């Protein structure tokens, strides 16, 4: 009798503890959502006053960014163009290398090779971005000068190449996960039907893993859009509106880092920088939504 009561009590205690833990975990999850909402609200709240005194249209279509009194101009296009050029060229360089690397790692490499190659790629992700920036400013710029002879050795291509190196590890680790989760029976069926290894990779594994690979690409572009330190050191930071990849550009993140310390709290420039931040937030948010959507579809396909 006594033991029965004890067991009952223990069960009650456990149920209580478990619901407590579940509640605590829910709070943890809600905190991150709350932070996201607060950041968004803060950005919007501080960007709105800017659009009270400056038209949204001239902000989005202006080609001169010069937040300097007495004649300030807040055209975001040169910065947007800078961000787009640098991150998309970075993606163009990183995608073939990253995907090739992933195919090799997940399908071809022997476990022995994989054991040292994978950590080696992951080390790339742990190098601080200021070190990449230093390398781009001092070494890579010299090489580009020797090859392309640009007018200024600090330019968009310099930033794009260093960004490509920085995003390859992200691309590889996410897309490798996608390739590994292609069900084993698909691969075996393909081989059993007489397809050779390359045909299996090309016709079976890549199509099956494609949504995951696309998500990896989108996420790494998101990372490239958000990178600040390396591009600030590599691209020369001129505010000109240009589509020339060998000209100096300034990205949106670099603008925030450069102009924020000088902006007086509450001035038009201060709010303008929040507007840039909001635009950046919207862009990366959209990129992440796209990645999530693609990933979700891919998960459904192989449930």
């Amino acid at each position, binding site marked *: 009798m006594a033991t029965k009561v004890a067991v009952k009590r223990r069960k009650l205690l456990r149920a209580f503890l478990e619901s407590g833990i579940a509640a605590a975990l829910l709070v943890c999850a809600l905190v991150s959502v709350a932070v996201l909402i607060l950041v968004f609200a803060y950005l919007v709240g501080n960007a709105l006053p800017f659009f009270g005194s400056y038209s949204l249209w001239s902000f989005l279509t202006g080609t001169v960014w010069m937040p300097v009194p007495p004649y300030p101009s807040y055209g975001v296009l040169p910065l947007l163009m800078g961000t787009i050029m640098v991150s998309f060229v970075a993606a163009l360089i990183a995608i073939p290398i990253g995907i090739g690397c992933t195919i090799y790692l997940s399908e071809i490499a022997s476990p022995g090779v994989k054991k040292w190659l994978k950590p080696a790629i992951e080390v790339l992700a742990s190098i601080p971005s200021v070190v990449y920036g230093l390398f781009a400013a001092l070494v890579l710029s010299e090489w580009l000068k020797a090859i392309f002879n640009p007018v200024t*050795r600090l330019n968009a291509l310099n930033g794009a190449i260093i960004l490509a190196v920085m995003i390859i590890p992200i691309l590889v680790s996410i897309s490798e996960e996608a390739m590994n989760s292609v069900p084993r029976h698909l691969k075996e069926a393909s081989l059993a039907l007489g397809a050779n290894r390359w045909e299996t990779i090309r016709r079976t594994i890549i199509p099956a893993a494609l949504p995951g690979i696309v998500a990896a690409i989108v996420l790494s572009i998101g990372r490239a859009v958000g990178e600040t330190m390396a591009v600030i050191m590599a691209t020369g930071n001129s505010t000109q509106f240009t589509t020339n990849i060998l000209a100096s550009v300034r990205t949106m993140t670099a603008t925030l880092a450069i102009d924020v310390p000088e902006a007086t709290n509450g001035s038009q420039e201060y709010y303008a920088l929040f507007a840039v931040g909001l635009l950046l937030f919207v862009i990366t948010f959209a990129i992440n939504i796209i990645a999530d959507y693609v990933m979700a579809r891919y998960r459904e396909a192989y449930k």
Partner: protein
Amino acid sequence: MEKKMMYVAVAVVIVIIVAAVGAVLLLNKPAPSGPTAKIVLLQKTPGAVAYSPLNEQAVYNGSYPLSRYLYLYTNGIPNSTSSLYEWLSYIYNANTGEVDINNAGFYPLQTADHAAMVAQLSHGNTNSLSGDFKEGGSTTMAQLAVLWAAGFKNQTGHTVTISLGGSGVGISNFIGGTVDVAQSSRAMTATEKASAHAKGINVTEWKVAVDGISIIVNNANTVTTLTISQLEGLFNATFTNWPQVGGTNTPVTLYGRDYNSGTWSSFKDLVLKNKENYSQSMLQANANALILPEVENDAGGVGYVGIGYAKEVAGTSSTAAMISMAMVMAAAGDDL
């Protein structure tokens, strides 16, 4: 099969490494022996006498058109027991601080200015900060502040922590209370003074040295002299090719500082006299020390730096570039 492929892969990697090392060795030509950039002489009007910022007298009496003061800002005048008092006394001493000013490549204050500053220091009253303190701001003054701080540490044992980021950053940190002293290569603006006042800060200005903002161009450039209006034309993009100001056919590329820099604003006030903005195509460096290497590498490049950073070009050694380059790298991590 697996093994064979692995050998091939390893061979390819070795080839890539060898090629990369080879490329580095080929491209890293030995540093040229002579200077690869030079200082341009400036004249106020066409036909007037042209002066170099290396001419101390011309910088002092304003014949060199881009002279300016370098400043420190404190909250009130430190009283004679405070470590800020010791700091300013060190700076205004001809045997300590002024030697450092010369070593950093700048010019000490002239007698009258010096006497006025020493007199101001003798009226110490409010600020009684003691022990170690923080100073921050101008990158033009980076090496100067480091030399001062090292000598000061030797003499008094107090540590002065120097941070950079530009004059604007230093002043806003000073107003925000995160540094005790602002170092600035421009005077505080009325707006900044007002917001400091609103926070109860009694802004006290200390002129500490004299600088001649120097215009540097690539050594291959045939232009040796510019008028102020030609300089204005270059930096507002009226002139985009060197023949327009007497050089040979090369497109002009502009190297300047960013918005946080005191040199950015001093140069704008002194040269862009029609209140126009800098050309959009100007590259914007976040430190003086980053401008010289770009101009050395660009036949059409023109840039502006504090005289301490230009002396290296003229073959006069100053500790400027080395120290501040190291500090920029250190500060970059902090700031961003």
